[in-house]
């Protein structure tokens, strides 16, 4: 533990980068644990707001970490979390990509990949559960979350329309 939030962000997100199985979103529960539970840098509701803003913006999902950093320590915080979340795993990828041919077809490699798949699914379900709990403060909000999920699962409506629809319902005071 250190006193400076920037150093703490660098350490926490740098470590997270190297254990982020399944990519950025699967480790949302860990991000929430870090910034809400452990350090108390924001409320769960703010965390859900920032996730929603990241979803409403174009680009890689992982940029939610930039917004978390922003919320904690402004522009410097955003830069630190973004660099910390991307550089360690990028260096690893850079190194491994050169020797990938050597173990691409190895049994242990396939077993690890296949074995991590259900772990990732469990983490994604955890992320969905925690974000829903944090975002929805009323019964109507839960209904909107459920309806949005149902529409995505059954139609090809573009997600941005659903985000916009949610925003309008919010503005009208429905949720």
């Amino acid at each position: 533990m250190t006193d400076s939030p920037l150093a703490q962000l660098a350490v926490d997100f740098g470590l997270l980068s190297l254990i982020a199985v399944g990519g950025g979103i699967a480790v949302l529960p860990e991000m929430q644990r870090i910034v809400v539970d452990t350090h108390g840098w924001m409320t769960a509701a703010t965390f859900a707001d920032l996730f929603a803003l990241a979803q409403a913006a174009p680009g890689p999902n992982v940029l939610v970490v930039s917004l978390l950093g922003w919320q904690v320590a402004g522009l410097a915080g955003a830069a630190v979390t973004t660099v910390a979340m991307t550089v360690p795993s990028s260096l690893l990828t850079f190194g491994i990509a050169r020797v990938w041919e050597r173990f691409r077809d190895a049994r242990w490699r396939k077993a690890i990949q296949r074995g991590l798949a259900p772990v990732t699914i469990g983490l994604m379900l955890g992320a969905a559960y925690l974000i829903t709990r944090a975002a929805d403060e009323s019964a109507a909000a839960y209904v909107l979350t459920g309806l949005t999920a149902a529409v995505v699962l059954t139609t090809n409506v573009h997600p941005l329309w659903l985000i916009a629809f949610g925003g309008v319902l919010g503005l009208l005071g429905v949720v």
Partner: protein
Amino acid sequence: MTEPAAPPPTPRELFAGFFGIGVSGFGGVLPWARRMLVEERRWLDPDEFTDVLSLCQFLPGPNIVNVAVTVGSRFRGARGALAAVAGLMAAPFAIVVALGALYTTYGSVPAIEATIRGVSAAAAGLLVATALKMARSGLTRWSAVIIAAAAFGGTALARFPLVAVLAVVAPLSVAAVWRSVR
């Protein structure tokens, strides 16, 4: 690995190509990465893309960033990797920071607050749908269901540190599939 269909891209071209990926996708950019890399610029053939994706999903960290590193370094070494990642992240980073600044300034204005509440509920729904889709296609064995339940319970309910959950669940899960791979 076969030769790519086009001459190897320069760092500048890598930056431009990944810049395009960065600004196109909402809620995940991997489909756009495939379109740019395979169909538009033909830097990779479909099999190479699948192989790169397999590597990048195997390794920890944001998958699309790993794709940028792998593709950039394959053509132009460290400079290529740097150019590809910078291209991918530059615009989206500026956009989310601008959104963050607006949130800080106007987030407590009642009308904005209400709008974000609605957006958050919808965004949670998108995530629920993604997770359910993955569960539907990926949880086809009882052992996978148990492993996923353990990962869910450990992180979302018990709120254990991820590293502790992985240390227990990941080896069990790999052992469970060991006999099914060769």
